[in-house]
């Protein structure tokens, strides 16, 4: 992706206004019938911080992201996001967050530019042609701006989803497997973008299976297993090898080698 710097499409370089805690979760629990998908999850994330969630499939990473995004309601527990109660004031939360989930929110019969225009207007952002094109240039989709998304590869759709994030004013980014489908240049650009986003005071939560990319953008790393956070440590305290060993012990069970 372009080395023009992530701020170009955002059209600003000023830091986010300082506030205290972006996510404050206490004893979150989510059940479907008798099955607990999340169980007693508590965490706190401040502005300018990045949290990477690791864990095997089906351990609740996506569920946790969707609850923080107000797409799901927790069965019990307290959750405040950007200072607002996520259950009682979801609209306030939605004004402060953006998300790149498993789906890319891409309409297949619209071009890249048209997709961006749609989401920019729906999000109440500047939908000017120059701004949209700058965002596409940032993620190196400018050459395909007028091409229908149906012809895009999974990686290109992922880039388009990231271009959408560039248009917004989110203070908290929730990213589910954001590195999947991106080539090396794309992963590098995304890593730099996320670091720059944090440097401006934004907070981010990344759920990923990619240890190195995830840890590279994190201040803290948490491992989820069986719906519980079994480890939550500063990333600086963990080498990749330590992390892999702990992951195998805590998430995969004793005697498992990665």
């Amino acid at each position, binding site marked *: 992706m372009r080395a023009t710097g992530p701020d170009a499409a955002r059209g600003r370089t000023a830091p986010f206004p300082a506030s205290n805690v972006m996510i404050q979760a206490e004893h979150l629990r989510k059940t479907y019938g008798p099955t607990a998908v999340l169980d007693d999850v508590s965490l706190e994330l401040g502005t300018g911080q990045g949290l990477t969630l690791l864990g095997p499939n089906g351990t609740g990473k996506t569920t946790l992201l969707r609850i923080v*995004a*107000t*797409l799901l309601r927790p069965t019990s527990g307290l959750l405040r996001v950007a200072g607002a109660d996520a259950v009682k004031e979801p*609209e306030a939360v*939605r*004004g402060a*967050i953006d*998300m790149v*989930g*498993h*789906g*890319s*929110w*891409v*309409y*297949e*019969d*619209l071009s890249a530019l*048209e997709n961006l*225009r*749609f*989401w920019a*207007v*729906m*999000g*109440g952002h500047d939908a000017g042609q120059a701004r949209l094109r700058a965002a596409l240039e940032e993620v190196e989709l400018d050459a395909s701006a007028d091409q*229908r998304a149906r012809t895009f590869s999974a990686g290109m*759709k992922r880039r388009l989803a990231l271009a959408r994030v560039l248009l917004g004013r989110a203070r908290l980014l929730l990213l589910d497997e954001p590195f999947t489908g991106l080539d090396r240049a794309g992963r590098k650009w995304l890593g730099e973008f996320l670091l720059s986003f944090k440097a401006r005071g934004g907070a981010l939560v990344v759920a990923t299976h990619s240890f190195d990319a995830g840890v590279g953008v994190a201040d803290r790393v948490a491992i989820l297993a069986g719906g519980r956070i079994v480890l939550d440590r500063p990333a600086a305290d963990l080498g990749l090898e330590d992390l892999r060993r702990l992951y195998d012990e805590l998430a995969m069970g004793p005697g498992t080698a990665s």
Partner: protein
Amino acid sequence: MSAYARRAWMVVWKDVLAERRSKESLNALVFFALLLLFVFQFALGPERARVEAALPGLLWLGFILSGLLAFGRTFLIERENDCWEGLVLTPGDKSAIYLGKLAGNVLVMVVVEVVLVALFAVFFAIDFTPFLLGLAAVLALGTLGLASVGTLFGAVTAQMRARELLFPVLLLPAVVPVLLASVSATQTVLAGEPLAEAAAWLKLLAAADLVYLVVGVLTFEFVLEG
């Protein structure tokens, strides 16, 4: 243009653009309308009196059957690539999305109705020109009623596994007042009587439209959130 109107307009723009390019719904609907006409003509035979007596009912049977196909697909586009999630997370009043979807459905239905009326004219050798104004008024009110409920139930059933089954089961009983009033008003218009003769039915239609529209606007957010 207010932010609310811009968002509603964007939904119409996006749906019309996607439909214009894919032509998935319109092609199927026009083909379906053609099939219906063949069946009707075969069932009624050449006797003029039978055709004229059955015409208002047949017209609205064609509209509602086409509507069942069109409305049921309205929100399927939002399931692709999880766009539904994006709509839920957009800030602001979600009823703008409902009104945008409703406007898109009305547009599709207008196209289908024009095609159906033209086909009826050709297949049954009926001259609609003396009744066009009155017919247009009844069609406008009836279509708004059908599309208001159809759009809402399209959203309700879009996330369900048995949506193809549930959608008509939910929709048809709900649109009975609209269908009754529309067929009766159409009968009056096609009999060459002045529109004022159908005033009671038109008032019922307008009232039903208003109720359905208000219910749709007020409840859509809950439907979208699931």
